[in-house]
């Protein structure tokens, strides 16, 4: 089934201001893992906010699992399926303690008490926040906030998980941990993932990559192909991380074996 479908979606924040999204047409199949990269201001966050009805298209329509996203009662139902981690976690905290904050979404979704406790324990362990469950979400370090925000979404068992730069403030080990959680969810639970990131190393791990430019999906490639066609990125002046650049140079010198090694190093996330 199609998990997300953007059907000629255009958007601007105010009438008369410039279009922020212009005629976006794309589909994400169930079980895909799409990484969105692109310059600051190109519309990545705006596009992701369309998927859980936080924003509605000015023109066109968004469908989640075949149903149109429209304001109204059905949004609550939709948000149980679509988990979203915001670019700034402060925007999503609602309760005075981390534990209550994580529980909040589950309460709304009618998860029974004892199951809530179990889910919180599991997510806390996965994201490494066991020791700060009683802390106040706003009084945490930058990276701790991001971990809490991720835990709060995981407990809802979404079928579509949207992460908007959700790992940007994590230390490298923390990033790896979160990427491993995503890999697990993707493989075992067949969750569909939409991951906005500026880190090409993270982006290379999914199944597909979108490069956004000026409110449009300018490049849409399968991640494996992306590593074989990096010159596309170069021309769009995206500086490549060291390993990506090295891969290109190895290919140029026909060092097939080593190029293969570096490609796997990137694809398997060893580069993270």
């Amino acid at each position, binding site marked *: 089934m199609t998990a997300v479908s953007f059907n000629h979606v255009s958007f601007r924040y105010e009438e008369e201001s410039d279009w922020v999204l212009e005629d976006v047409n794309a589909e994400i199949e169930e079980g895909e893992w799409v990484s969105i990269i692109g310059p600051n201001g190109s519309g990545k966050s705006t596009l992701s906010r369309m998927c859980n009805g936080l924003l509605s298209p000015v023109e066109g329509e968004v469908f989640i699992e075949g149903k149109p996203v429209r304001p109204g009662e059905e949004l609550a139902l939709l948000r149980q399926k679509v988990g979203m981690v915001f670019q700034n976690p402060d925007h999503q905290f609602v309760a005075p303690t981390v534990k209550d904050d994580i529980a909040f979404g589950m309460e709304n979704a009618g998860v029974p008490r004892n199951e809530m406790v179990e889910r919180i324990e599991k997510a806390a362990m996965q994201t490494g926040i066991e020791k700060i469950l009683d802390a106040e979400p706003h009084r945490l370090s930058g990276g701790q906030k991001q971990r809490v925000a991720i835990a709060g979404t995981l407990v809802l068992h979404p079928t579509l998980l949207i992460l908007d730069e959700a790992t940007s403030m994590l*230390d490298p080990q923390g990033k790896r941990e979160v990427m491993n959680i995503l890999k697990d969810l993707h493989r075992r639970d067949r969750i569909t993932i939409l991951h906005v990131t500026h880190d090409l190393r993270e982006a290379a791990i999914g199944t597909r990559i979108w490069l956004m430019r000026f409110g449009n999906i300018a490049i849409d490639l399968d991640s494996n192909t992306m590593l074989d066609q990096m010159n596309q990125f170069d021309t769009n002046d995206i500086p490549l991380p060291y390993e990506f650049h090295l891969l290109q140079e190895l290919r140029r010198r026909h060092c097939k074996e080593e190029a293969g090694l570096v490609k796997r190093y990137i694809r398997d996330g060893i580069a993270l």
Partner: protein
Amino acid sequence: MRIVFEKTSYTYMENTPLEKRALHEVSTTFPSGEIIAVIGRTGSGKSTLVQHINGLLRPSQGKVTIGERTVDPKTKKKQIQKLRENVGMVFQYPEHQLFEETVEKDIIFGPLNAGTSEQQIKKQVPMLIQRVGLDESLLHQSPFHLSGGQMRRAAIAGVLAMNPQVLILDEPTASLDPKGKQEIIELLKEWHEEKRLTIIIVTHDMEEVADIASRAVVMHDGRIAMEGHAQEIFEQQGRLEALGLDLPPRLKVLSYISVKTGVPFSSWSLSPEKAATEVNASRKGNKDV
């Protein structure tokens, strides 16, 4: 300006059940005019440490000396106000420091407050936004209507506008696109070259540390675990790993290739071109044998 921490401790929400000691008797010196990187895992105390330099936090015990000014547990708010004119800080989350109606007003707020004439500071705005890579059309927008990376750029412009003697940046490149990251790092290098100010940058990006910093401080559990020349710190791979930190990416991938294929690289800081050339040469060498 030189910055000296002397047995600085800090406890959040002291004397409450939620009390949290975030710094434990930290003593260190940041020499004047250097670029110092502060690294360490999530929650290790980096932001807490640097917020002492502009008086946003006052030590619970011990003291911090910034140039001629000393901040200790008894320092009055007024004295701290003076400090802020010389010490600029870009917060980890830029939305915490943007508050004006428009981006332009935000950028000129600091200098205006410090007594610069509006006319004079406005003349500098085009140069500033160009250097941080912010489009002119955004100047009259509300800062809260910017994208994450645009906000970061606006916050940096606002702090540079104050022309501070000490510049603190808490994960300044976290929300920037890859090109923006490079541009901001270049901008900081140039600014440092021009003004010879002290720059303190908190970052998780080891390439960035290697690229920009002369000194590095590694925080761990509210204490300084390592400090010294950035290069020397990277040489202590075992200790870094024990602290849960990473090596610079190029070092990681080159040693990975070396282990898997036996290619002996002449250095761990080779450019991609040079590294690939060495791989190629080593394969040819093997064939000849």
